[in-house]
């Protein structure tokens, strides 16, 4: 019972703690790269805005389009 919990819960948890989901975090002095236009989530903001307009006009409700390809997809 103990070793089942150990291998299925504790060991993966420890591995996740150590790797932190991203092997190399962004350093403070590298943040300018994230601010570049090509690093934005949405590559075509005008097209996205026009599509958004079409959708909320047809659906009579708005929202849910904000997250480009990331996020949890819960909306």
């Amino acid at each position: 019972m103990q070793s089942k919990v150990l291998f299925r819960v504790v060991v993966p948890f420890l591995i996740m703690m150590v790797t932190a989901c991203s092997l190399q975090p962004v350093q403070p002095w590298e943040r300018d790269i994230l601010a570049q236009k090509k690093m934005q989530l949405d590559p075509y903001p005008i097209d996205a805005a026009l599509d958004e307009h079409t959708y909320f006009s047809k659906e009579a409700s708005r929202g849910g389009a904000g997250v480009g390809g990331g996020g949890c997809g819960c909306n």
Partner: protein
Amino acid sequence: MLNPSFRFTLTLLSLACFAWIPPVFAGDDLPDVTVTTAQGSLRLSELRGQVVYVDFWASWCVPCRKSFPWMNQLQQQYSKQGLKIVAINLDKDPQLAKQFLADFPANFTVAYDPEGLSATQFKVQAMPTSYVIDRQGKLQATHLGFREKDTAAMEAEIKALVSK
């Protein structure tokens, strides 16, 4: 279900995620970094005997537009008393740094570290960050960011160190 000692171990492990030790340099632990300047390579330990003001900056750092004129004034005022300002640039593209320097010239030593090795060794948390090092090579102060209202206090600090 789980025995008490195992539960205790699990609790401790889950609390481990809150263990974050802020980077603090004890007096002697200051990293001896080597950076490249226009005059060649420079090692921090070579500057012992002078009061060193190490400033990590980048071309995109907005407060640096205010900090550079202040550092110019500081270098001019205290250079005879042994103050050396070393501004280490962390831009990946040194051309951007040169553009910044064209708009905000520096009369102090400017070093380039595009790989960010010296910043990693100093565990830089914010941009800009400056470190005040005394004549014996010990870290006296760390300043995260640059605010004009703090300049008077920083200048007093440096004045005290150069007079020793």
